[in-house]
């Protein structure tokens, strides 16, 4: 009798699940998932910072377009953002690799959410600090750069880690434009073997869970530490 949970489909394809055809071909599987998540996370940190600062600018011509853009992206499903990028990037820049299209889409999408976190961090610093900085002669930007952001951003580290967790989950959507990250690899193996969809999808769910849960726990630990630091 066939076993209820056929583990061999996992063990036979384990390397393929983890790194795709690497090092003889392009990186895939978990490796590519993490690559997409890490690169998009770094880019969206800066994207979020810029968008966040623009959206609290005192100049309306800067503030309103920034807010409009943030709300536009936040109102859309990520899948739509990916399709937009998939469709617009070649029209604007000629041929673009799928990996980069996905990184662009993830970056735009996550930057909009990160910008809200940045704004929350800026709001969390007492107003008196801004007033004190300005009265010592610093400009609005210098106040942000030297006084507000260094404190605000430190408090936001747990939120950034949570965004990274969302990014790991969101990279699964890269599957739709044929980027061979973990979910795509799983559907490939599923199409090839035909008989073990339960095993394959439970396995990759567990892989995603382990990755995300590790970072969720890290974020909680950091939150505890930050609370401890503020308390003392």
């Amino acid at each position: 009798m066939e076993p209820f949970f056929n583990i061999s489909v996992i063990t036979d394809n384990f390397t393929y699940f983890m790194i795709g055809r690497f090092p003889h071909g392009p990186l895939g599987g978990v490796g590519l998932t993490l690559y997409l998540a890490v690169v998009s996370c770094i880019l969206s940190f800066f994207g979020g910072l810029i968008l966040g600062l623009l959206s609290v600018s005192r100049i309306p011509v800067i503030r309103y377009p920034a807010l409009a853009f943030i709300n536009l992206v936040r109102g859309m499903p990520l899948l739509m953002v990916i399709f937009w990028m998939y469709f617009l990037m070649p029209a604007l820049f000629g041929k673009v690799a799928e990996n980069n299209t996905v990184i662009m889409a993830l970056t735009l999408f996550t930057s909009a959410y990160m910008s809200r976190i940045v704004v929350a961090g800026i709001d969390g610093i007492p107003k008196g600090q801004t007033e004190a900085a300005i009265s010592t002669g610093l400009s609005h930007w210098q106040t942000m750069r030297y006084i507000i952001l260094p404190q605000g951003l430190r408090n936001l580290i747990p939120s950034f880690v949570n965004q990274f967790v969302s990014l790991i989950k969101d990279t699964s959507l890269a599957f739709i434009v044929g980027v061979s990250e973990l979910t795509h690899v799983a559907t490939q193996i599923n199409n090839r073997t035909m008989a073990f969809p339960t095993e394959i999808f439970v396995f990759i769910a567990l892989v995603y869970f382990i990755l995300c849960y590790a970072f969720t726990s890290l974020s909680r630990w950091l939150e505890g530490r930050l609370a401890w630091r503020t308390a003392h």
Partner: protein
Amino acid sequence: MLNYKFDWSIITSGQYFDWLVSGLITTLKLSGVSIVMAFLLGLIIAVMRMAHSKPVRWFALAYLEFFRNTPLLVQIFFWYFGSYKILPTFINDWLNETGFEFAAAAIALTIYTSAFIAEDIRSGVLSIPKEQMEAARSAGFSYLRSMQYIILPQAVRITIPPLVNQFLNIAKNSSLAMTIGVMEMTYQARQVESYTFKGFEAFTAATVVYLALSIIITALVNTYNEKVLNVHKAA
């Protein structure tokens, strides 16, 4: 891009317009069904999460952590491709007859969102002073009855804004159902694009629909916050 000819007429009338409208209807149906089921399931998980029995609490915690830390797309694939092994035969038969795509997407969306809703409800419950529970218990209500009559009616009132936002999330997340062939909004926009090569128009239409949905819902939440909860300047 420069020699692209815009033709908005294809999406404002005729066959392609009908496709987009049917896509919107499917999106609303899928999100509507899922939010109701996710609310009920989330309520159960939230109560279990706060129960006295340790195994019950651990079960609820494991459920929350697992479903929140796996991608929705993988969960959709699991229910669509892989669930036949764990479901009883009669359910499988029924699902195959009724169109499994929609059901699989609804199940995945329900379970995924219920984990988030459970946490929203829990923070609503935690915001109710614990003396109320003590008072209810000493008045002779059981734990479940105190929850049912005293705590939850108040907690749910506070939880309505996050719940409405969850509906918005479901509406956006339901776009993933296109991967298993549910003909919702994003699917139809893609379809119009591949039939007409008018991607810009098709995606604009879908984007405007999602945006309108989120503007309407955000406005509703803000009104509710101001009128009912008397909270000003909602996030």
